[in-house]
């Protein structure tokens, strides 16, 4: 078990000068290779902002304090160009809306090969082979022909698979996944969760999974942290969090799940 990425006392302030607000307050988390760290919370809890802060994707007006450390590199103080090298190469991110990481007017092949060539300096032909391999790995049917198609020609689930392929193209050590299945139908979601779990095990990825869905959390996360009002209220191993939650808020969240309410109405 090796820690790949550590957040220590991470705090983020956002908003205009007149109404500055602390959105993330003192979050400390470790991402471990081969494990999925879940980050749960309701909208407004600051979970997405936390993920964004890791990659330096917050607007320029944001103030980030505390530390985001990857090995010996401190990410919060990196200059833009150095940060760009880390983004995509060592840390990748997928979003709720896969279209956010796909260019609508470029073929899948062009995007994947560009990405691979840019970061890994591969030759065109080599890169194309690698792109097809990646698509095959994320189980996009018929990868060779998929390379020539455009994002809109795929279903939402396939697009998310492609976004994952893109994220994994450069063999990153860390994957940040922000509500990756929220916009998908449950039957499609199940497939993506399988894929995510398999990839983590096979590539020894460290994943930060941000989701409001405790069902999803329970299915794939190894450790779970619960956020509220910008703070971590509780964190620990999955089983313990679900079966023996300590914080009242965690309990409240779990009790609100439809599963917890055994047919009380009918």
């Amino acid at each position, binding site marked *: 078990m090796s820690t790949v990425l550590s957040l220590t006392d991470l705090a983020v302030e956002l908003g205009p000068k007149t109404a500055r607000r602390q959105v993330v307050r003192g979050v400390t988390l470790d991402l471990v290779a081969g494990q999925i760290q879940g980050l749960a919370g309701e909208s407004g809890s600051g979970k997405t*902002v936390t993920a964004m802060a890791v990659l330096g994707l917050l607007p320029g007006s944001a103030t980030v304090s505390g530390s985001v450390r990857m090995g010996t590199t401190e990410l919060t103080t990196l200059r833009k160009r150095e940060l760009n090298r880390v983004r995509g190469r060592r840390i990748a991110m997928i979003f709720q809306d896969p279209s956010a990481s796909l260019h609508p007017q470029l073929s899948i092949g062009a995007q994947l090969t560009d990405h691979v060539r840019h970061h890994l300096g591969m030759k065109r032909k080599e890169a194309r082979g690698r792109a097809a391999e990646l698509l095959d790995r994320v189980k996009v049917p018929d990868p060779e022909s998929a390379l020539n198609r455009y994002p809109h020609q795929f279903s939402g689930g396939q697009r998310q698979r492609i976004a994952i392929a893109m994220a994994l193209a450069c063999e990153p050590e860390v994957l940040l996944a922000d509500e990756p299945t929220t916009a998908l139908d449950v039957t499609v979601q199940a497939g993506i969760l399988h894929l995510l779990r398999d990839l983590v095990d096979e590539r020894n990825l460290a994943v930060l999974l941000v989701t409001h869905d405790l069902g999803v959390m329970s299915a794939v996360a190894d450790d779970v942290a619960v956020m509220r009002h910008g703070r971590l209220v509780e964190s620990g191993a999955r089983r313990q969090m679900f079966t023996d939650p300590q914080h009242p808020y965690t309990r409240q969240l779990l009790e609100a799940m439809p599963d917890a309410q055994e047919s009380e109405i009918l």
Partner: protein
Amino acid sequence: MSAQVSRMSRAADARVSRRSKRRLPAAWRSPLALVGIVIAGAWFLAAILAPWIAPYDPLAQGLPRLTPPGEYSVLGTDVLGRDALSRLLHGARVTIPLAGVLVVCAMVLGTIIGAVAGYIGGWVDEVLGRLTDLFMAFPTVILAMVIAAALGPSLYNAVLAGIVVTWPMYARVTRSLVMSLRSQNFVIASRLLGYSPWRSMGTDILPNVMGPVLVLASLEVGTAILLLTGLSFLGLGAQPPTAEWGSMISGAMQNIDAWWLGVFPGLAILTVVMAFNFIGDSLRDVLDPLSSAERQGAGSAVGPTTVNADEGDPSAAVPSEPTEQEAPR
């Protein structure tokens, strides 16, 4: 379209919170808005007070002819021995109110036509849409010239021509806003509660359309002034001896050496148009906080539309909290 509407509802939110906070929103405190308000205010005052502050009767021809500024009068005299300053001040009484009338009439006409087209849709929309396109297909100024010339040169005909050429803009904006509002859930909910189309229009649609239309109108005041003075300059608007800026410049053309006769009315037009554009811009920022927030690279999330896409603090929904979004999408 839906983005537009949610933006509008945000605009409405901004207005409400302004009322509840009784504090000027940031956009009104911007220097440009202030400059605009001061200049426009000064011209309004000049227009109202002209009979009292003007040193001479604008039509009286008693002074020495073509004297440069400072000799007999602050801004000199024209070829007929009239005081340029008095004419300039009285000119404000002509152009500014008429531009206002032009804008209000065009706005009312355009809004009605656009609202009818957008709400009823179908062939009515088709016909009104074609009509709007027809008017918009011609270059504004040339069409206005043709109409003014056909009606006969007079200031009132110039205003009429101005209305005829500018209403389509309001119609277009209103139509698209109404079309997107018409399918909004709250409009449908009211219809399901038995609102008649008139009532729906009056309480659900128009109040939510007025913001953007008023912004457009405020931006159009400057254009209207340019149009009226332009037509007068060409002899299609105000007729001599009326003290009107456009015709004053036109008169100055015959004595090009007497630079003061052209420059000062020109400056008057410039400052008024600029002032109204500044005001219009700021008004847009007030009514549409999103567009200004976007320019600064931050979003605003009063109304997140997708599930869990919003990471806005829940306190944003608590009464009179400012509503900035924390996470860029």
